[in-house]
């Protein structure tokens, strides 16, 4: 079992023409990762396969984002999200993640496919502010369901004020 490293302020940057590809099963266990995934995460292929994708979760990420992510893909819909990931050496890297459900021939859900691209710096700057506020909301209410509820309310409120759906907002950044 891999241990999550302590985060540092070191940043890694994904190449402009590259993308990270990974696949997981229904529980989020990694079943495939391309070479960019291996390189950016700092883990070997052997380490990554069979490990939960959440090994890359950075403590700066609000939990509500992953809640939204899972709710959406479990409903067999696509989701896009800006994510700050944690590499094996404690450094971080920002990605614009796109996750889509995979189906077998019978149309049954068999896993998830994720492509992560290099985000624009301006988009990262504005989403980081929002994530910070959401995270503060989660911490203020304690780490339980209450925090999640408060954070989700704040996210919805933010979107409502902009008059945008989550998707429109994310693609407009």
């Amino acid at each position, binding site marked *: 079992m891999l241990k999550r490293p302590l985060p540092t302020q070191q940043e890694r940057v994904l190449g402009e*023409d*590259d*993308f990270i590809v990974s*696949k997981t099963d229904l529980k989020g266990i990694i079943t495939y990762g*391309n070479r960019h995934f291996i390189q950016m995460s700092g883990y070997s292929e052997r380490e990554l396969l069979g490990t939960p994708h959440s090994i890359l979760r950075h403590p700066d990420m609000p939990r509500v984002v992953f809640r939204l992510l899972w709710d959406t893909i479990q409903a067999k819909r696509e989701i896009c999200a800006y994510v700050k990931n944690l590499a094996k050496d404690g450094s971080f890297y920002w990605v614009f993640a796109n996750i*889509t459900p*995979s189906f077998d021939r019978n149309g049954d859900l068999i896993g998830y496919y994720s492509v992560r*691209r290099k985000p624009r710096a301006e988009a990262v700057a504005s989403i980081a502010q929002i994530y910070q506020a959401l995270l503060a909301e989660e911490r203020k209410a304690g780490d339980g369901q209450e925090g999640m509820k408060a954070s989700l309310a704040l996210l919805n409120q933010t979107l409502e004020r902009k008059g945008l759906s989550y*998707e429109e907002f994310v*693609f407009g950044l």
Partner: protein
Amino acid sequence: MLLGAGWAASGPHPLPTLAWSLGGACVLLLGLALYTAHRILTALDRLTGHLKAAAAGNLESRITGIKAGAATGELAWAINDLLDQQEAYFREVYSAFEHATRGQTFRLAMDQGLHGAFKEAMVRVNISVESLGQVQMMALKEKLISKLTDLNSGNLLTNLKSIQEYLMNMTQEMSIVGQLSKETAGDAEASRATIEGLVADLNRVAEMAVASDAQVRLLHEKSDEIHQIVQVITEVADRTNLLALNAAIEAAHAGDAGKGFAVVAEEVRTLSENTKDAAASIAKTLQTFGQATTQMISDSEQVKALAEGSRTAVAEFRTRVLKFAGSATTSFTQMSRAQDLSFATLVKVDHFLYKQNGYRVIHQGTASPEARAVQSDHRSCRLGTWYYEGQGAELFSHVPSYVRLEAPHADVHRNIHDAVAQLSGAWERNPATQSLIYAHFEAAERASETVMSTIDRMVEERHRLA
């Protein structure tokens, strides 16, 4: 490493040993080569499996557990990269189109990380997504416009129907008011005649009062004359009485000789007494008669004054009645014009309704109530009934424009019928048929304009001639 060990072991031995060693090394090399070849073949087999799956359209599978430095490692990663490119490409295209069909054209396909032809194709995909968005927007706009037109024409129809109902009520009420106004004008005329008669009568009464006043005055004068004559008679009687008394005294003096004379004197005195009595009686009668004539003069003067006053009042009344009769006639004329205008408007609305139903058939289809409604021809529609049998024929057939209404009205019906006839075919997909339908509606509109202006002229002419 094995090869190195072989060479290292061969150092201190003699030739046969060397030969053995070489032989052994060859066997080992062969074995190694066979093993490596087998491993490569096995790995290639696996890779072939993945590629065959990909060729069959299954982009899901990937090669995992790739050993670093393995001969087929780079090949395996290259295959994974190819599959990643393909799968990312297809998923992006799917997502973008899936969103676009729901009108969410902000979700363009992301080409970042795709290479070469994949990236170039994605640019074209996004052009399609964007134009799909525009087409959708146009289609939605068209749909809205069409729905709005439908809504509008539906409401227009309802509105027209309510105006029609209102006009029908108004026409009915105006017809009642018109009748009343006509009666009032008749009454005013009759009153005028009565007043003229009354004035003539009063004039005669006044004249007669003046005449009878003169007669009474004459009578009064004559009775004064009679009074004077009666006084003369009374004086004569008095004197006669005195003479008779003196004669009686003289007769007494004469004694018996005067006896006969005394009788005569007595008779004369009696006669004079009787005459005096009669005169007194006449004077008394005359006094009563005089009082009566004085009263008559006073009465006749009052009658004269009254007749004079009545004449002035009746003259004023006459002026007023004449004015009233005049305005009653004017208001009757205006009322009848207003009635005609409202009737003309009503038949116009009937005509609008007919046309609107024609347009509605386009939306509602040839089996709709609207389609049945437009089947009527120019003789059986409401305007036609009005024109050939109803008030139109009754009130307007004498005006010059009446005959000019028939042709354009028949034209409207013919064109609407022709347009509706085109709707039974596959007009939705045929631009030529659509132009034909449009042309018929356009011709119907032009004819309808003539119908409207002709109705206006008919009303105008009827009131100019009247």
